[in-house]
């Protein structure tokens, strides 16, 4: 059932994202055209198209966040929740379908914005330089030992996990916010900031305690590669634990405390 839910989730979001990506691509091409002509007569249209391009990039960032929030809130916690929560599917499937689609679109928005910058700035010389540096990067990588590869892998895992945990943080805040009868949006915002605050305090206390008790003394005198590995592993564990807490809290609330208006 997760597959079917995911299919519909992607369908309902693609109709917003895809036109936006297309628009970004078109403005990038138009800008590219103006830049390559580079005539003084085209100053004003050039400025306009550049502004449009930047606006769309900003819009993609904002809209990706808004849709990530709105799909969960509107589709599960408001009127559409009457449909989603009466389907014979598990709460897990409902949350996971939203989460997976959100992760997918967040990655897509980042990659596509990045590529549009590339399209805009690349000419023949630059293309050559890019290909060259990519090759150099590959030879650099090949020359490194396993430890460095492992660090790169860990970094990628950490970035993806942070994205997942970040989205789940939004979900759990909305789930908590929906527990009150009135002013659910305000309560969700409050829950979000409160979670952040608690984490900040816990983190600060932990660092102070660690500094006082010399817990991290063993890092001293380690070589930098080992240090980086150690810190990345710690960060991955912390983010994964936080993500798991958010997920199970969200699931618990939606399963046992659901109260649709």
């Amino acid at each position, binding site marked *: 059932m997760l597959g079917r839910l995911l299919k519909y989730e992607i369908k309902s979001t693609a109709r917003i994202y895809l036109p936006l990506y297309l628009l970004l691509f078109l403005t990038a091409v138009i800008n590219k055209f103006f830049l390559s002509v580079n005539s003084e007569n085209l100053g004003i249209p050039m400025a306009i198209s550049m502004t449009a391009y930047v606006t769309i990039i900003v819009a993609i960032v904002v809209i990706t966040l808004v849709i990530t929030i709105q799909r969960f809130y509107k589709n599960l916690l408001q009127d559409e929740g009457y449909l989603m929560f*009466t*389907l*014979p*599917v598990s709460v897990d499937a409902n949350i996971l379908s939203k989460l997976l689609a959100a992760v997918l679109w967040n990655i897509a928005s980042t990659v596509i914005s990045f590529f549009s910058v590339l399209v805009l700035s690349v000419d023949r010389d630059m293309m050559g330089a890019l290909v060259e540096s990519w090759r150099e990067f590959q030879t650099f990588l090949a020359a490194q030992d396993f430890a460095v590869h492992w660090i790169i892998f860990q970094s990628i895992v950490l970035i993806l996990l942070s994205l997942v945990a970040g989205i789940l943080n939004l979900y759990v805040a909305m789930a908590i916010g929906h527990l009150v009868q009135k002013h659910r949006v305000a309560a969700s915002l409050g829950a979000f900031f409160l979670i952040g605050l608690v984490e900040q305090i816990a983190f600060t206390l932990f660092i102070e305690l660690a500094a006082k008790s010399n817990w991290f003394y063993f890092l001293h005198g380690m070589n930098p590669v080992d240090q980086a590995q150690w810190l990345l592993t710690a960060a991955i564990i912390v983010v994964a634990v936080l993500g798991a807490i958010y997920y199970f809290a969200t699931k618990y609330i939606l399963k046992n405390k*659901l109260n649709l208006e």
Partner: protein
Amino acid sequence: MEPILQCKNLTKVFPGKVALSGVNLEVNRGRIVGLLGPNGSGKSTLIKMCNGLLTPTNGELLVDGNAPGIETKRIVSYLPERTYLNDWMTVRNLVDFFDDFYTDFDKAKAYDMFQRLDIKSDARLKTMSKGTKEKVQLILVMSRNASLYLLDEPIGGVDPAARDYILNTIISNYSENATVMISTHLISDVERILDDIIFINQGSIALVSSVEEIREKNNKSVDELFREVFRC
């Protein structure tokens, strides 16, 4: 046979308001039941709890012997009192959606009803009037071969001619062992199709009876009895 719906001391408290208090109820299979009560009497709360959209504060609710969950959702077809479908979807999208998730959904039956009501399958929900939207929802819900249909205010927003069509749709589309529970305060409209009635008032069950019994015992129509019981 086990009743399709059982409530044992079912209570729901909202902050500052008791929506249902200690409801004990059994609804049998193969009946058309009217859940009748004035506005705010707890009709929707009860139906939403049957669907797991609200969790009870106290007590127990069983559908086909199970607490609301995946198993009960498979056999319950629910029409909420609001529009709950994605309004950018076309009728065809919606039919496919229902067909994908409910194994008891009968596609041919749905298209047949849409055609009879002259609702185009490529029309988007967004472009429809409120009454048409309600018809679309009802057709989707009644095209399932469910064991329990829970219809919350199915005729509230449509004209009297459409009301008749909808009621006929309901009685001609459920199988013998299925139960249909209709919540409404438009009693005279639904009276002719009901087998049983449940009067609910201020969160408590006021009366459970068969329609026949009311007519014989009180020599009154359900509508008359309702006006008497709920006199303001």
